[in-house]
């Protein structure tokens, strides 16, 4: 039980992928215009991260390591992530077209989203995960859990960001600052706020 809490705290707060480690910023800025699409993107990324960890962890530990072909790791991981994203894209197109249009070009970009690949690489790194979670040995359960909560950390950051941006959009800002620049400045403040977690 203690590990679970540790996973939640470390994945969502201490090593939050977006705001502490600055991975996956493209969709984080691109889709956080309104709360609904931000939540949609967050959940999609969480889903991709969880499934990715579910698939890549066993592939790495059961197939790649025994055969000693670790260099293939990046290619296989990205291929799997891309396949999952492609499936999600079709599912979204069918079940919620509005969310599909809101995400637009940023949906395929989940594939190259550094956070997803980041979590896949982090989870297979035995030494670091043990250090991070204080557990004796790494197994599939922890990997998927960490992926899930890393995704939720991403969702938390993007929803907070979209809330901030919606309020800021109503303020009379200088014309060139509208849109992305003001989003960046909000992200700058969020980064400072989360900075305190990194100090723990």
């Amino acid at each position: 039980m203690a590990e679970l809490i540790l996973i939640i705290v470390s994945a969502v707060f201490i090593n939050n992928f977006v705001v502490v480690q600055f991975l996956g910023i493209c969709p984080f800025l691109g889709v956080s215009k309104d709360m609904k699409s931000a939540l949609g993107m967050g959940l999609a990324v969480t889903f991709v991260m969880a499934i990715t960890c579910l698939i890549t962890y066993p592939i790495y530990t059961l197939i790649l390591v025994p055969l000693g072909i670790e260099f293939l790791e990046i290619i296989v991981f990205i291929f799997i992530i891309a396949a999952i994203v492609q499936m999600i894209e079709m599912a979204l197109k069918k079940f919620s077209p509005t969310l599909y249009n809101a995400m637009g070009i940023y949906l395929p970009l989940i594939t190259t989203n550094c956070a997803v690949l980041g979590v896949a690489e982090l989870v297979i790194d035995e030494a670091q995960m043990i250090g991070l979670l204080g557990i004796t040995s790494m197994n599939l359960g922890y990997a998927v859990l960490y992926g899930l909560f890393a995704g939720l950390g991403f969702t938390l950051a993007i929803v907070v960001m979209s809330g901030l941006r919606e309020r800021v959009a109503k303020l009379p800002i200088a014309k060139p600052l509208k849109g992305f620049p003001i989003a960046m400045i909000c992200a700058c403040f969020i980064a400072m706020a989360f900075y305190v977690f990194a100090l723990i």
Partner: protein
Amino acid sequence: MFYSLLAPVNWGTVGIVLAIVAVIAIVFAILIVLVSKLCFVKEDEKIAAIAENLAGANCGGCGYAGCADFAKALAEGKAELCGCGPTSNEGKAKIAEILGIPFNDSEPTFAVVKCAGGNKCKDKFDYIGNKDCASQIRLQNGKKCCPEGCLGDGSCVGACPDGAVKVINGVATIEKELCEACGLCVRSCPKNLIEFIPRSAKVFVACSTKCRGKETMANCQVGCIGCGL
């Protein structure tokens, strides 16, 4: 010669790698096609063709969330082609032919503010509040004596994506060169003073007052008194 080049390659791993990659590729390809079969959305290819020819500025002038929505509305016949200003004439011609509706290449238009009062028009009271026409009009129909006059608080300035609208000494003016005729300002003006006129028009009446001459003369120095000359 060629074989010695490939000597260091140990074919064992190459074989294993090919097997693994092949298995993964096939499994995921089948999964993807399965999902694509399950979630087949009957995408009307007409919509894609129309979207191709639209200007794609996503300005919202047509009243829809974006060009994709406007294309869908066009395909279902819910929207007219002239609703979209920025699309060029040939684009409209192509769309018309896709939809099979007649299309006379209408004269390119631009927006104009039908009021020239501003500081020349007297004020009923001093308005101190949110600098926006929509909120000012709630207060006794605005600060201007002339009931149809431009309030000069520039809610249309913010609406225009190309920055073609400026408030100059109290009245909104639109620069002919920058206007893309997208229609966002038309909807943003609470007094409905902004209209489209053909670009080739040399002159237009910059006043839309409905009062009689004597009253207009009292309210505004440049008001039109309807002389009918």
